[in-house]
Every structure is written in C-alpha cells, then in structure tokens.
C-alpha cells in the first residue's frame, strides 16, 4: 500500500512516515500544499493523509482540486476541532477527519479502514480458500497456521488479495508497494513473489505472462 503524507511540520512528517513504513506501507511525503497536490495527482495512492494548514496551498484547496480528477481516499489532519471545520472537511470530499493531537494507533487504524473500504472490503479478514489474510493484524495464515512474511511480502499479498480475481500489472505493484525513496529493481518484485510462493504455495499467485500477477478466487 502506498501513502502520501502532506504535512508542513518536519518532525511530525518524519515520525508519521516512519510509523507508516514500520507498518509496511510505502510512504511518500510532501511538505507543502503544492507539492502534495502535484504528487497526489501523479500517482495512484491508496490513501492520502492531508494536513489543512499548509504553506502555498491549503489542505482545502488541495482536496478540492484533487477531487476533480481522483477518488483517492483522503484523511484530513487538522489542529482545529470546531465541528464546522469537520463538516466542511467531510463535505468537500474528505473520507475521514482526525484532530491533532491524535493517537498514532488511531491514525493507523483509520488509514487501514480507508484503504479497505476503497477496495470494497467490509471486513478486516480476506478469505481465499484455506489462506486467510488479516489486514488488521497484518498476518497471513494457511490452514490455521501463521505464515512468517516480511513487511514487503505481506504488502504484496495484501494488495493482490484486495484485488483478487483481477490481474495486477507489475507497474501497479511498483506504484503501490514502493515509495519514491525505494531503489527499485524490476527483479526485486520477482524475488518477493517467488518467496511468497515458497511460503504459501506455488499456485497461490498466478503469473499472467506479459500482463502481471493475480490471485484467483
């Protein structure tokens, strides 16, 4: 899952990016509204965490302009807690709203929920035959046994699971699993896929030659 965090307070930005990376997200950051808007329109992020008080372009404007082209789920962060502001945020197309100072765990949970909802999932648990992906606990189990995956491997499985039945292209996977700071090599993706196949089963992920990967229903 790839996130964009737009926040002008450097210390907050860095700690948020760190926290989301720890959770296996690929995280891009922007320190002002213009940069945030540029990045948000250039990539298909799975979610955007957007501060309201931003230099150059405030969060309201970023959201408004973004909504003209993209349906990316957006969570607004703000230091104002008047309900008027909350209503305005939700009305102008924000999917969720969190007031500073917030609890990190709550922010992570809300972002998870945003991504799950935008993928059309209602529950945290995705079942595919005897393989179960728990997006809240970030675990994969087969026949009741927990399977040890790295954060990156888990992210790959989760993304394919959320889009199960669809063919996901390599480009899509690169876009959603790696952030701008990752040095990306095309074979890295193959390495992850082959590792997952070893751990879960050779036929769990199907390769569609020339198209991409797929988890069949």
């Amino acid at each position, binding site marked *: 899952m790839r996130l964009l965090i737009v926040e*002008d*307070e*450097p*210390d*907050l930005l*860095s*700690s*948020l990016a*760190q*926290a989301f990376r*720890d959770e296996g997200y690929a995280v891009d950051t922007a320190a*002002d*509204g213009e940069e945030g808007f540029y990045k948000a329109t250039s990539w298909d992020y799975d979610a955007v965490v957007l501060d309201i*008080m*931003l*230099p*150059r372009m*405030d969060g309201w404007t970023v959201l408004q302009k973004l909504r003209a082209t993209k349906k990316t789920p957006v969570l607004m962060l703000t*230091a*104002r807690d*008047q309900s008027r502001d909350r209503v305005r945020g939700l009305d102008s197309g924000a999917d969720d709203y969190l*007031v*500073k*100072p*917030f*609890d*990190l*765990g709550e*922010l992570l949970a809300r972002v998870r929920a945003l991504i799950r909802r935008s993928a059309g999932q209602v529950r945290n648990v995705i079942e595919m035959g005897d393989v179960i992906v728990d997006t809240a606990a970030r675990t994969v189990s087969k026949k009741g046994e927990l399977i040890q995956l790295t954060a990156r491997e888990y992210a790959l499985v989760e993304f394919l699971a959320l889009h199960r039945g669809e063919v996901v292209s390599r480009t899509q996977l690169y876009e959603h699993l790696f952030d701008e700071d990752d040095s990306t090599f095309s074979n890295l993706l193959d390495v992850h896929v082959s590792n997952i196949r070893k751990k879960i089963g050779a036929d769990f992920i199907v390769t569609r030659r020339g198209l991409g990967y797929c988890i069949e229903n």
Partner: protein
Amino acid sequence: MIPKSIRWRLQLWYGLILLLVLAGFGVAAYQLQSGRQWRRLDGELQRRVNVVVSGLRGPEARERMGGDRINLDRPARFPGDQDDYREPGRPIRPERPPADGAPRGPIRGGPSLRLGPQQLLLFDQDDTNGFYFVVWDREGVELARSTNAPARLVMPEVPPRVRGPRPNRTREKWREAFIMTPPGEIILVGRSIVQDRKELRRAALLLAGIGGVILVFGMAGGAWLTARAIRPIHDISNTAARISEGDLSQRISVRETESELGQLAGVLNSTFSRLESAFAQQKQFTSDAAHELRTPVSVILTQTQSALNRERSAPEYRQSLEACQRSAQRMRGLIESLLELARLEAGQEQMRRSPTDLSRIAADCVEQLRPLAAERGIQIETDLPPAPCSGDDGRLAQVVTNLLSNAVHHNVEGGIIRITSGSEAGFATVRVEDEGPGIAPEHLPHIFDRFYRADAARTTSKGRTGLGLAISKAIVDAHQGTIEVKSELGRGTKFTVRIPV
C-alpha cells in the same frame, strides 16, 4: 409573581392613594350636598317664619312692623343644634286650628294670626311630612298651630332678653326654626326631615357607588399602566437573563431611545456588545493558543508512540528525542510568549522608563542578528543618527529584534534590510524595511493580532510563535508610543515605531 415586585408595590400604593382621594372627595361632596340641602330647608323655614310673623296682628303690630325690624335673613344652622331646646315647664295648650285652615280670629284678646290662602299654601296642612307652624304668646300659651304640627311639641326656651331669630334646631325627625318677636311671641316653623335624610342617604350611597366604580376602573387602569411601564424592564431583565445564560448575541430592543428606560437599554446594549467582543476575543485567543499547542503535542505523541512501537537503533531514538525536544522548546516559547502578552495586556509588566537612545538599541540588535541574516545572504543597511527617548532598554530591544527577525524571515534570499532611526515632533523613531514579498492589504489591519498569519500556514519550525508583533505592539503601547506598518506587494514592508521622548 411575588408580592414584593415593584409592580405590585406600585399597584398597592396607587390603590391606597386613589382610595384616599376618592374618600376625601366623597366626603366633601356629601358635606357639600347635605349643607346645601339643610341651607335650602332652613331658608324655606325662615321664609315661612317671616310669613307667620307678617300674619300676626295685635296691639304690638305697629311695634312689630316698626323700625325695630327683625332680621329674618339670619343664616341657619345644621341639624344637631339643640342648644335652645328645653323641656317646657308647663304643657302646651291644645288648641287646634279649624280643619280647613282658614284664618283665625283673635285669641283671647291677645295678638291674632291672619294668614291669606296664598300664605296658607306654604303649609301642607294635611301632610304630616310637610311644613307646620306653632305660635305661642309671651305667656307660653299656644296661640295657633297648623293641623299637621306634631302632637308632642315643646316650646323652645328663649332667653327673655334676646329678641329676634334663634338658631334652628333639629329635634328627632323634625327640623325647626323659631323666632321670638319683639312683643314676645314665639313662632316655630318646622318640617319633617325623614325625606331629606333618605335623600342624603341615597346621595351617600350613590357617591360610594360611583367611588367604587372609579376605584375599580382606576385600579384596572393603574394595573395596565404599571404593566406597560414595567414591560420594558421585563424585556431588559429577560434579555439580561438570556445573556447570562451564555447567549451573548442577544440585545434589548430599544423602542424609545429618548426615554429613561431607552437610555438604560442603550447603555446595557453597549455593555453587552463590549462583553461579547471581549468574550469573542478571549474565545478566539484560547482557540488559537490551543491550536498552536496542538502541533507540537502531536509531534511528541507520534514520535514517542512510533519510537516505542518496536526496538529502534540508538540514532533513531536520538532523532525521536531531538524532535520531542524541539517540540517541547516550541511549546515553552509559546507559553512564555502567551504569559508575557497576558502580563503586558493586563498592565502588570512595569516599564522601567529611563533616558535611552533608540539608535543605540537598534545598533545592538543589528549586531545580534547579523549572523542570522548572513545565513540567508541578507544585508542589513543602517542609518542610525541619535534618537533619544525614554523607555525600557530591554523591552525596546525586544521590539527591534522582533521586527528585524521578521524582516530576515520574510525577506527574499540575498535581499536587503534597511534600519533607520530619527527624531520627529517629540518622538524618537526607528524604521525597519525589508524587500520581502510584502503583505496583502486585506491582511494589514490584522498583523498585530495574536496568532494572525498572512500565510495560512505555519513557519513554526523556526521558533516563530505568531505572537511577536502582538507583543511588540503591547510593549510600544505601554510606552505610549505607536507602531505602524506600510506594505506593498512584491516590494517589501516597512514598520515604523515611535517612542515619546
């Protein structure tokens, strides 16, 4: 409604006064009426006495009609004058006149009474309630009486030497006038006053009734008037109650601004307005302060929660701690600024006023800020002729430093800052000009407001609280000086501080 309310007290007093006035008026009217009635009756009696006197014939007729004329116009007395009444020493001789009331002949050779038919008409011989007369001779012997004269009649005792009319008397249910003629006959004319008393009672009842009706209407009118007079007070107290419940936007509707209550409402409204704006300011301030504190608290929370989530390397912990420290320092700076501002605005901060020189203060500040300016490639040009004034060195330096550091932060990279001092008309001045992007006209009136930022975003990480200009203004105000700003978009901003000499 408690009985102690002004309205009921007014009503009570009004009722009492109305009652007293009505009672007084009623009594006076009754007295007037009864007096007039008795006077009229007494006049009638007197007239009849005169008629009877004129009908007396006898040896002393000449004397009676002569120069010693009896004054018959003597004013009557009111009922109850019984001082002349006495029980006679001997019984009245019953000698009734003829039934037809015809003139009688002489009695026992003494004086005789002759009354013509016209005169007799004045006495209702058949009506016991009508006028009657009795005449006694000087011996106390009854000479004549009208048929309707009451049987039990006593001769009034008249002091022998006093001739002429005597005060009227009221006896049981009769009013009587009597007179002693110069020869000594006593003539008494009377009439029953049962009817008069009845009439007076009716008049009294009528007066009481009218009074009662007036009282009822008066009280009703009074109640209406007091309600009307009290209503604006009710409006005021209701509005005040709503305001004290927290709805500060309420105002008393002022209908008549000229009246006393209108003026009171006006004064209260302006007080409410001031209260409202003070509250709004306070609310804004609290909300702004909370807002400013939220970001550093968020940093500390996320940094610590993220750091504690799992094992980190020593440099990572170090980074987190540094971030926390920066946020904590920012909060400290913010809190100190807030407290300073609060003290300044409350007038607690005493300015040590001593002779000083703005140019020297400015020069010191420039030296301190040169390194910061140099980091951004900014040059500071100075033109600092002496500018003596009286003020607090440290505080004024704070103002100049703040203006300079603003000029550094808002200047373009490699720009120039000009700082000049001078003296003009009782003021020492210092000007700070930058070449920054300038401030839009719509922001200019607010830049001295606490936490006001022309740019919606924070530039917080540089330790700027958004209170610098507010504090500067508070310090300048405490010196009775002025601070003003001029700005042109794209050209730069100029602050001018004037401190009295």
